[in-house]
Every structure is written in structure tokens, then in C-alpha cells.
């Protein structure tokens, strides 16, 4: 019964989404204030209906209601409670329901926090959100209904894919979706601006916190997924340039570009048209990601062709929204007009360089991801585009940008002083160079590229704080005065510093682990000891254990340094009984920023030996610590006064002081 209520709520959500699309739109077009005023309440209602449907599905999972096909296919009565809940979005139907739920959540948040928006703009944004919600709710109901019943109901379910039964995966998809779908807000704002034919600095100020929030979630989500792949897939890689990863990386790149161009627009009213286009692109790429992952087109073109319903419907939605948005853009963008002027060497110019590189990088990832599909469709030949291609194209593209990042915040708006910025940065450049040289000295035989990479990393890390350092007045000003000044800095300055420093930290981690990682593959019998990066690793033996829904063989390794015990590492091989699927649980010991990573291979037949893979991963955790800094930076920026207060149009005088303070 409760399941039918959930199903009903989903249908209700679809109907309400139709109202959410039509009523505010008609209201704005006819100037009917009552219809405009209805928009927020409908948005709340859609969210409530979807939240109810989602709760019901979750309940069906928690109570192991095997009369639901979706629960049978993805759950098991013996599964731990946490994974019963996360199993809700560990499959196609449930994850699409989560997708629209988050979409409706964002719509409701615009309704809730948008009281300082002009009512017509808010209504128009809510209307566009409603259109997206309508399309995807319809998609769920007609092609991927999670509430489909199964009769007769089986006694037991098939269990969730064991590789997904992990805490990392519990958090990863919701974070990722909050990011993906968060960009729908900037998209809706862009469409609303195009429909209304009006856009100004205030628009940018309203859009920016939403973009920033989406970006924060997406950053955290991607980093989380990367760490999950690192420890769960068991071969110690952290980024594979897999199409599914690229699908989340493209919106991130475009979103990062959008964050920076929106800044130019907010401060100087320049790059209006471009910012609108980026807002459209960021969400379009999110939609594309959803299509790529959900349609199965990536696994193989044949899988897509054999069950094309879902794929074709998502493709139709994709074409409608992207095509429609770009059409509207082509039609209306010229009416938006140009903004302030600036010299190429200026803060705006720096942000433009950021945009140039990030969009080119996005295009490269885009073409690389889709090229095999294109070639197969056109010529019928099959080609592969994998990590070596992206390493060869993406990395050289990014290097000039990384070198330029510390300059950006030091340049003034309108017309900057490159020489002056360089003068203020040379100390930091010196530190970075020294760090690079020190790396070469200490790690004998270090590749030259690694030294360059480390130098770039430190350059970013220290250069990121150059602006803060300069504003503090240190070392001339006294300590008390400096602290006073630092406290008075706008939080966005700190946000920029942390986010850019995070980029440096990631660079350090990547370069370090790529250049200095040590890897061993060997057979070990109980009692055998091997040497890894100055540690002695002894294999003590293995024993069998039983988990709630799996059995496992756990091996014990003692790690010691100079015969002092350091850690016990226990990698395991599991067999999930319901599906008969084996998985590897890597054993990891973290020391400082580095990790010892052990994964088990197969036992050697006829002996008590086992194949063991050991890695020394120097500074590997920096790869995920960097995104944490970026998220902190994003939060600082989000809490900046000018975003918290909302978006009053600043008086000319206040605007000047703001610009001067930046």
C-alpha cells in the first residue's frame, strides 16, 4: 500500500512540475502578479511529493520489500542497514529518482532563499527548473519506474553489486548529483535572462553562490569517487580517464570556468554573453554525463542499440534542453550588450586566460571521450582513446595555466601591472624553485620533469597566499597590525587563496606519486619478508572470516622500520555469497601524507604462497587533500559578505570601495 502511495506521489510530482513550468511562465508573460507569486509554493510542493516518493522507496529497501522488482534486483535481507539505504541509489531507477529529488531541492531552495530576487526573475527561474523536473520525472515514470511490482515476490533479493557496498559509495553519488544538478540553477538563470533579455552585475551576483555551491559539491564528489576507486578497485590508481569519470570532470572544468567568468561579470559587467554561454554549457555537460552513464552507450554501442528506449529518451531530453538553450542563446544573446572595457593585462585578462584554457581543456576531454563513438558511427572502425591520450594533451594544456594562476589575483581590474605582480611574486617563485631543486637533490635520479612538477606545485601553493601576504603588510607592518588587516580582508580573498593552494597541493601529490612511486609484485609464503621504501614488510599468514553477507580471506602483514613495528596491514579477498562475486579489499597504512598499499593476488597452486602486490605511494593523500582545501576555499567564498547579504545593487561609491578592496 505504502509503495502505491510512493508511486502516486511520483505521478503527482509530474503533474505539479507541469504547473511549475506553465503557471510562472504565463504569469511573467502576462504580468499576472498572482501567478508569479504562486511559483515558490508549487516548487515546494514538487519537492515534497518527490521527497515522499524517495522516502517510500528507501523504506521498501530498509524493510526488504521483495515485492518490488527494484529491491529484489539490488538488495538482500542480510545486507547491513547502511548499504540497504545506499542501495537505493546504487541502481539506475533509484539514482534517477535521487537526481530529480535533488533538482527539486534546488528549485525549492531558489524559492526559499530567492526573496531578494526580482519576483519575475525568480518565477522564470522556477519555471525553467520545473521544465527540467518535468522531463526527468516523466522519464522515470515511463521508462524506469522504481515502484514496479513483482508477483509472486521472491523470498530473497539478488544483493547489491558488492563493489558498491562501501561507505565511499554511500556519499559519492549524492555529492556528485548535488554538483551536477546544482548547475541547473545557473542554467535556469541563464535561460531566464535570455527570455527576459536583460542581464547585469546583479544577475551575476545572484548566480554566483549557486554556481559556487554546485562547484563545491562536485569537487568533493569527484575527489571522493577518486579515493573510492583508489582503495576499492585494488590497483592503486586514482584517476583513469574513464569515460564515466570524464563525464563528471567536464562539468567541473566548465563550472570552474563559469565561476571565474561570473566574477568578471559581477565586478565589471564584462563577458556577459560568454558567461551566459558557460552557464548553459556547464549544465549541458552535466546532462551529457547523465546520458553517457545512464544510456549504456559507453559500454558498447550494441548494448545501447539492443535496449534503446532509455537511451533514446534521455538523448531526446538532452537535445531538447541543450539545443533549445543554444537556439535561444543565438536568438537573444546579441541583445545583452557589451560590458566594461579592460586591458589584456588585467584581472579580467587573467580570468579570460583561465577561461580560454579551461574551455579548451573541456573540449579536449569532450572530443577524447566521444571520438571512439564518432569514429565507429562514421566509419564503422573501432578505436580506443585512453589515459595516454589525455596525459599527452590535457597535461601540457594545463601547465601554462598553473604557472599563471598566482599572477591573477595580484593584477588590478581594468589595467594591471604585470611587472609589479612579478616583483611581488619573485620570492615565492624562488621558494618554489628551491623546493624543486631540493627534490632533485634528495631523490637521487629524480626525473627532471618531476623537479619541474614539484616546483610548479610549490609555486601554486605559496603563490596562492601572495595576495593575502601583500594585504597583510608584512613584514613592514607589525604583527598586531597585520592580524587586524587580515581579519578585515573579504572572505573571498581567503577563498581564492585556499582554492588555488589546493590546486598546488594536488599537483604536488600527482607529481610525487607519479615520479617516486615504488611497486613490487611477488610471491610470499607465511614468514617471508620484503623490503619496500625502507620498510620491512612481513607476511604472517591468512585466515578466513565471515562477514554479514560475505566470506573473506584476510592476510596479515607486519610493517616495521629498523625492527620497530610500524603497523599491521590486513588486505583481504572477499566473496559475496549472494552474487558469488569476489572483490579485493586493499590494505592501506597512512604515514604522513604517504601510504603503503597492499593488495592480494591469487594463491599459488600447490604451495602456501600467495601473489602480493605492494606499493609505496609517496604523498599520495595530497591528491585528495587538495580538493579538501578547494572545498574550504569555496566555503570561505560562499560565506563572503557580499553573497551572504544578498544582491543589492551597490551604490557607485560602495562599488568603488569594493573594487578597491579586491
Amino acid at each position, binding site marked *: 500500500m505504502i509503495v502505491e502511495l510512493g508511486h502516486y506521489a511520483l505521478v503527482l510530482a509530474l503533474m505539479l512540475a507541469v504547473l511549475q513550468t506553465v503557471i510562472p511562465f504565463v504569469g511573467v508573460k502576462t504580468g499576472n502578479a498572482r501567478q508569479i507569486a504562486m511559483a515558490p509554493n508549487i516548487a515546494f510542493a514538487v519537492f515534497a511529493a518527490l521527497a515522499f516518493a524517495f522516502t517510500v522507496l528507501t523504506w521498501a529497501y530498509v524493510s526488504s520489500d521483495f515485492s518490488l522488482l527494484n529491491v529484489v534486483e539490488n538488495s538482500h535481507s542480510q545486507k547491513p542497514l547502511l548499504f540497504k539505504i545506499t542501495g537505493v541509489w*546504487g541502481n539506475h531507477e533509484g*539514482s534517477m529518482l535521487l537526481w530529480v529529488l535533488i533538482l527539486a531541492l534546488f528549485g525549492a531552495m531558489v524559492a526559499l532563499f530567492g526573496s531578494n530576487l526580482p519576483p519575475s526573475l525568480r518565477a522564470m527561474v522556477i519555471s525553467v527548473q520545473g521544465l527540467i523536473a518535468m522531463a526527468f520525472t516523466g522519464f522515470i515514470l515511463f521508462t524506469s519506474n522504481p515502484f514496479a511490482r513483482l508477483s509472486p515476490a521472491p523470498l530473497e533479493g539478488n544483493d547489491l*553489486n558488492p*563493489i*558498491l557496498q562501501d561507505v565511499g559509495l554511500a556519499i*559519492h*553519488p549524492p555529492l*556528485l548529483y548535488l554538483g551536477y544538478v546544482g548547475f541547473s540553477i545557473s542554467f535556469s538563470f541563464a535561460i531566464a535572462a535570455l527570455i527576459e533579455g536583460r542581464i547585469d552585475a546583479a544577475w551575476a551576483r545572484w548566480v554566483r553562490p549557486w554556481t559556487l555551491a554546485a562547484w563545491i559539491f562536485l569537487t568533493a564528489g*569527484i575527489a571522493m*569517487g577518486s579515493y*573510492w576507486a583508489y582503495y*576499492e*578497485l*585494488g*590497483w592503486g*590508481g586514482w584517476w*583513469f*580517464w*574513464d*569515460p*564515466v*569519470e570524464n*563525464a563528471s570532470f567536464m562539468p567541473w572544468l566548465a563550472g570552474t570556468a563559469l565561476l571565474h567568468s561570473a566574477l568578471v561579470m559581477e565586478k565589471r559587467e564584462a563577458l556577459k554573453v560568454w558567461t551566459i554561454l558557460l552557464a548553459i554549457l556547464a549544465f549541458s555537460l552535466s546532462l551529457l554525463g547523465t546520458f553517457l*552513464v545512464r544510456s549504456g552507450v*559507453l*559500454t558498447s554501442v550494441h548494448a545501447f542499440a539492443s535496449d534503446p528506449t532509455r537511451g533514446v529518451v534521455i538523448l531526446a531530453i538532452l537535445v531538447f534542453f541543450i539545443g533549445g538553450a543554444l537556439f535561444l542563446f543565438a536568438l537573444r544573446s546579441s541583445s545583452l550588450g*557589451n560590458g566594461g*572595457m579592460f586591458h*589584456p593585462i588585467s584581472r579580467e585578462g587573467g580570468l*579570460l586566460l583561465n577561461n580560454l584554457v579551461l*574551455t*579548451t*581543456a573541456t573540449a*579536449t576531454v569532450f*572530443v*577524447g571521450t566521444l*571520438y571512439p563513438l564518432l*569514429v565507429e558511427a562514421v566509419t564503422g*572502425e573501432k*578505436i*580506443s*582513446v*585512453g*589515459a*595516454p*591520450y589525455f596525459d*599527452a*594533451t590535457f597535461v*601540457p*594544456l594545463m601547465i601554462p595555466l598553473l604557472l599563471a594562476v598566482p599572477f591573477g589575483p595580484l593584477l588590478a581590474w581594468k589595467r594591471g601591472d604585470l611587472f609589479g605582480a612579478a616583483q611581488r611574486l619573485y620570492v615565492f617563485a624562488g621558494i618554489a624553485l628551491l623546493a624543486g631543486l631540493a627534490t632533485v637533490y634528495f631523490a637521487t635520479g629524480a626525473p627532471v620533469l618531476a623537479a619541474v612538477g614539484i616546483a610548479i606545485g610549490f609555486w601554486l601553493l605559496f603563490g596562492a597566499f601572495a595576495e593575502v601576504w601583500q594585504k597583510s603588510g608584512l613584514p613592514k607592518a607589525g604583527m598586531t597590525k597585520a592580524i587586524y588587516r587580515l581579519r578585515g580582508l573579504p572572505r573571498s580573498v581567503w577563498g581564492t587563496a585556499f582554492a588555488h593552494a589546493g590546486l598546488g597541493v594536488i599537483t604536488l601529490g600527482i607529481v610525487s606519486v607519479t615520479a617516486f612511486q615504488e611497486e613490487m*609484485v*611477488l*610471491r610470499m609464503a607465511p614468514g617471508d619478508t620484503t623490503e619496500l621504501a625502507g620498510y620491512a614488510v612481513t607476511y604472517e599468514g591468512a585466515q578466513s572470516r565471515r562477514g554479514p553477507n560475505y566470506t573473506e580471506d584476510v592476510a596479515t602483514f607486519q610493517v616495521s622500520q629498523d625492527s620497530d613495528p610500524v603497523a599491521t596491514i590486513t588486505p583481504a*579477498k572477499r566473496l559475496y555469497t549472494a552474487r558469488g562475486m569476489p*572483490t*579485493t579489499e586493499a590494505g592501506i597504512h597512512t604515514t604522513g601524507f604517504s601510504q603503503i598499499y597492499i593488495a592480494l*593476488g*591469487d594463491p599459488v597452486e600447490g604451495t602456501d604462497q600467495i*601473489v602480493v*602486490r605492494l606499493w609505496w605511494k609517496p604523498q599520495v593523500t595530497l591528491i585528495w587533500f587538495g580538493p579538501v582545501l578547494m572545498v574550504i576555499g569555496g566555503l570561505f567564498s560562499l560565506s563572503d559578505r557580499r553573497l551572504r547579504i544578498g544582491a543589492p545593487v551597490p551604490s557607485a561609491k560602495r562599488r568603488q570601495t569594493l573594487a578597491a578592496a579586491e
Partner: protein
Amino acid sequence: MKRFLAALAILMFAMGAAHAVNPDEVLDDPALERRARDISAELRCLVCQNQSIDDSDAELARDLRVIVRERLVEGDTDEEVMDFVVARYGEFVLLKPRLSARNMLLWGTPLIGLALGLTAIFFLFRMRRGAAPASGLTAEEQEKLSRILSDTEDGSR
């Protein structure tokens, strides 16, 4: 759901953890082994989803790894090994497609992207400069200015 499909593929084809090189495959000569690893990282495991043979535990990946090592031991250069594998399995096996007419767009994208962007920026600045008021004053403005200037001069006197 990231990595989900890849993970699924590994499970389907490898039925075991993704494990690459096994101890019995490793060559005695470390330099040769290093080259074998580097080559392996650029070759696709044909039955996997976006995995190199260096990362994959599939039977076919293992065979290919052994072939690569055999060729290297026989004294082939890296290019010769690649050519040999491509001749056998087609270009599908390369994770980094070759520079050819068909792959022009693929390899050209970064350059085309930068070129297009730079052109657009160039025209943006040129257009702006054109749109900006010319630095010289019109005759009318010149006259107005000199009148104002003479006024102030008069006043200061």
C-alpha cells in the same frame, strides 16, 4: 556511479580482483621490464572497459603482456613491438590513437580550441577599441574645450 561500469566489466571478465602483472611474467632485466610496463600501459585490454593490459587480470591481457615481453626479449624496439601488436589486433588496441587523417580532429582539438579562443579574444579587443571613443576630439568638442579653457583663463585673471 563513477567507475561502476568499469568495475562491472572487470568483474564480468576477470572474475577476480584487477591484478596486473604476475610474478612469473616479470623479465629478469629491469630495463627491459620497465620498457614492457611502459608499452603495456599504452595497450588496451581488448575485453575490458577502458583498461590497459598493464592493469588488467583478464586472460587475453595476460597473453598480450607475454607477447610484448617475448618481442622485447627478441630485441624489437618499442615501435616494432607496437607495430606487431597493431598488425595483429588493429588500432583498437592502442589507447593513444596514432596521428592520422582520421584522428586529425582528435589530436587537433587542443590546438584548434586555443586558436579559436585566441582569435575570438583578439577580435573582442579590436572591436572594443573600435567601439571606444576615438582618442582625438571632434571639431565640435575641440571648440567646446577651448571655450571652457579660455573661460577658466578669463576667470583666473
